[in-house]
């Protein structure tokens, strides 16, 4: 008999309690995962006109849905738009956020930067409303422009604060001695601060990227031109509204998308998130972000 030395407060509970916990945990995991499995399984099913049984395995495995999606250009084009918006948006977001976070990391030395910091924090307190934002984007001439999906959300006060906290943890001596050696502020940022903050930079970049990829609001409001729609709007059109997209004109209901086709679009729209998720998860479970919240 092996005895595991556990402290008394970690003793194994009685078996009914354990069984109950296992059932509850199992149910939670099932509720979280079953919908995803169902969607994937349906997307690989041949469309037979009937609903897949339990939906855990594809019914009549087939790549037909994906083939027809990639034969047309609606989803492909929207994927390109989403990829472009995500890449360019994330790059811009990082430039703006790093600049802000570093520039505001020494409010005592740099006159005026405390005021800017409070102005940034203030944006967490209010939102200016949908209509004023719409009128602004319109008056800037950005309606129906790809930039309308990037510029209005290019920076986020919370991410800047997280990054700034991280920069402020960098030992002052390190910065001062680099400056003694003749390093400029720019060199200190690029050679010292950024390499020391790789992990948090990666997380924030991924957060921005996921935000751009998932963005529905901005594209819905600012982009009427179907040719410029990102994947989320196409997903809404195909799956949520159940309408097909006629590239030339307004949406038509001529060829209603079938279930497997719909689910394939869902899978395509979700896949990039699933790909980056393990990276995201590795970092935020380390408590990096909660550390920032807890200050």
């Amino acid at each position, binding site marked *: 008999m092996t005895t595991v030395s556990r402290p008394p407060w970690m003793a194994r509970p009685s078996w009914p309690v354990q069984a109950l916990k296992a059932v509850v945990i199992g149910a939670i995991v099932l509720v979280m995962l079953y919908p995803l499995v169902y969607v994937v399984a349906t997307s690989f099913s041949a469309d037979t006109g009937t609903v897949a049984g339990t939906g855990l395995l594809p019914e009549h495995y087939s790549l037909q849905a994906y083939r027809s999606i990639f034969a047309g250009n609606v989803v492909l084009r929207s994927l390109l738009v989403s990829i472009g918006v995500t890449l360019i948006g994330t790059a811009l977001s990082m430039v703006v956020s790093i600049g802000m976070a570093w*520039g505001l990391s020494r409010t005592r030395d*740099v*006159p005026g930067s405390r005021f800017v910091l409070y102005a940034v*924090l203030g944006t967490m307190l209010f939102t*200016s409303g949908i209509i004023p934002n719409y009128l602004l984007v319109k008056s800037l001439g950005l309606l129906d422009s790809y930039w309308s999906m990037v510029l209005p959300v290019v920076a986020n006060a919370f991410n800047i604060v997280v990054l700034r906290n991280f920069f402020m943890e960098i030992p002052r001596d390190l910065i001062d001695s680099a400056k003694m050696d003749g390093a400029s502020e720019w060199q200190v940022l690029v050679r010292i601060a950024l390499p020391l903050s790789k992990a948090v930079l990666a997380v924030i970049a991924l957060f921005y990227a996921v935000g751009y990829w998932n963005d529905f609001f901005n594209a819905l409001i600012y982009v009427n031109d179907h040719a410029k729609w990102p994947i989320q709007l196409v997903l809404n059109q195909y799956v949520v509204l159940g309408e097909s997209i006629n590239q030339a004109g307004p949406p038509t209901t001529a060829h209603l998308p079938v279930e497997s086709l719909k689910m394939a679009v869902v899978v395509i729209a979700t896949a990039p998130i699933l790909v980056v998720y393990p990276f995201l998860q590795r970092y935020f479970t380390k408590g990096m972000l*909660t550390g920032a919240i807890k200050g």
Partner: protein
Amino acid sequence: MSLTTAEPVRETTAAPPEKPKKRSRMRQHPWMYLFILPGVLYFTVFQYLPLLGNLVAFKDYSPFLGFSASPWVGFSNFTGLLTDSEFLTALQNTLLISLLQVVVAFPAPILLALLLNSLLSDRVKRWVQSVVYLPHFFGWVIVISIWQAVFGGVGPMAELLHALGFGQQNVMANPDTFLALVTAQVVWKEIGWGTIVFFAAISAIPVERYEAAAVDGAGGWRRTWHVTLPGISSVIVLLLILRLGTVLNVGFEQLLLQQHAVGADAAQVLDTYGYFRGVVGGEWGLATAAGLVKGIVGTALVIAANSIAKRAGQGGLF
């Protein structure tokens, strides 16, 4: 717990020996100003400038006349809101949905955190965590698409209900159960993410307290009740107060995406009202007024909630 404008200690204690003139201190840091320039531009143009756009609430705005040529109408857009039954529906729905979320979606992550915390195996714990965090990263279009697949008219849930003798059911298009549906979706998407902050609070509880409780003969349930819960109660109270401050915010995307399925009576909230009246319907003044009222009340609530949290000795967020 504060959203941290806190400076490192050295900055507050060790003031520089002599303080050079402001002008010359500014010249010492040209890079710093260059660094913040793009951000300052962004926050000025896209966060602060739109505040001026709220003046449209006091105008009979017409896109053809433009901002300055549109006539001022005083508060008539605001009184117009009060006589618009759709606005009142939206307000009522917003409050109802919010209330349900505070009652159901707020405690759910606490319960899950307590449950996961009581697991002995770290591997199981981490695995379950990585499953429940996942939906947080799905946008609302993806979430609604998935829910529609499972709960919609042709999905497995409809089939199951049919087999159980409930007839043809489409949970996604039923206005009567829509409140429950919306709440369930929020729980599904955010329950895992919500646990993170409670996990942090739980891990901050000193192990000695559990030791002492165990020595005194307290079992697992009683330790949870007498040690863990009191240990995280201050975080719970703070988050609850702050949550009440955002009671007017219910997911715009979530509600908009489902409005065509269940109808405006069930799914119209303040934000979707503003969108349909303004961007879609062209009643700019009315829509802006609705947004402005929501914005002002929302900001006031957050500030009030924060000062209540401070007064309750929990420390505010700012």
